[in-house]
């Protein structure tokens, strides 16, 4: 039995390594488990990363008042899902705010709905969100303007988390929907 389990582990590892070498995103070796968290979901339910085991998750961080990076990323991810066709049902976009002051669940829901109604946002207390950012190595720095307005300079990449809940890759900002479709097609086949 131990030999069989060992063989299975070896095959899973080999298939992950093979896929990793062909992805357009940056890949982690070995991949680690995506840290779980519990936040308030924009759909009114509890948002946990572990809920999406069995799907490939695209995890991104930002804020709804973001003028450039976030709309571009979310637009790209929405186009990616459209290009995936039927496979889109196995891909979940999760967008976690770095701006808990303004990004309440209702606001996130309305914002994300404009891109793709299936997108789920996550919000919570400043402490909860800071803990999630820490677990995922996300930077977010608040920049306050003289008039009291503010924005966040934040990490702009998107994590690709496989069906088994492992952080497999990191897609830097600026990649096309075609690049996402390429990588997702590989990860969905596993």
């Amino acid at each position, binding site marked *: 039995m131990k030999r069989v389990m060992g063989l299975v582990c070896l095959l899973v590892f080999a298939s992950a390594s093979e896929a*990793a070498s062909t992805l357009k*995103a*940056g*890949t982690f*070796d070995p991949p*680690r488990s995506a840290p779980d968290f519990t936040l308030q979901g924009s759909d009114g339910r509890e948002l946990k990363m572990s809920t999406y085991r069995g799907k490939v998750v695209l995890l991104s961080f930002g804020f709804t008042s973001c003028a450039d990076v976030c709309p571009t990323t979310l637009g790209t991810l929405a186009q990616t899902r459209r290009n995936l066709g039927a496979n889109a049902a196995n891909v979940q976009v999760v967008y976690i705010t770095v701006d808990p002051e303004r990004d309440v669940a209702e606001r996130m829901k309305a914002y994300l709905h404009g891109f793709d109604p299936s997108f789920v946002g996550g919000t919570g207390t400043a402490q909860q969100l800071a803990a999630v950012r820490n677990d995922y190595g996300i*930077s977010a720095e608040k920049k306050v303007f003289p008039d009291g307005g503010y924005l966040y*300079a934040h990490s702009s990449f998107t994590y690709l988390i496989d069906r088994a809940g492992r952080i497999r890759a*990191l897609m*830097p900002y600026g990649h096309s929907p075609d690049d996402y479709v390429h990588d997702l097609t590989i990860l969905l086949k596993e």
Partner: protein
Amino acid sequence: MRARTTALLVLAACGVAALAWLGFTPIESASHDRIFDIPKGTWARRMSGDKVEILPDHIRLTLGLRDVLVLRNHDTVPQIFGPTLMMPGQSFRLPFERAAEYQFACTAHASGQMTIVVEPNPATPWARILWRAREWHNSHP
């Protein structure tokens, strides 16, 4: 006088031949990886007040030759390395397919940014000479 002139001519001919070789010989690269390692004990050194700079804030890559950034954490604790959080023993491999300037948020640098410049494949003799000179400089810091 004549011997000196001959020697200078030979020297000049050798220089021209070397430049021609550097400029016209196609560049082949055994590995596309530009590797940066966090050595074991880095965290401990930082904790003791040692300023440890492993990753430059500007990295130059070249399409088709050296176009994969590889980061490896050999330390015993997780580290923010470049754009990402890396676990002990983990490596991160980021390929580039387009020549451009890429900005990453990076808390390890004072500027908070890391810039990766991906240059096109050196197609002209002069570009090949410059590329070889830079590679030589990088391998003999």
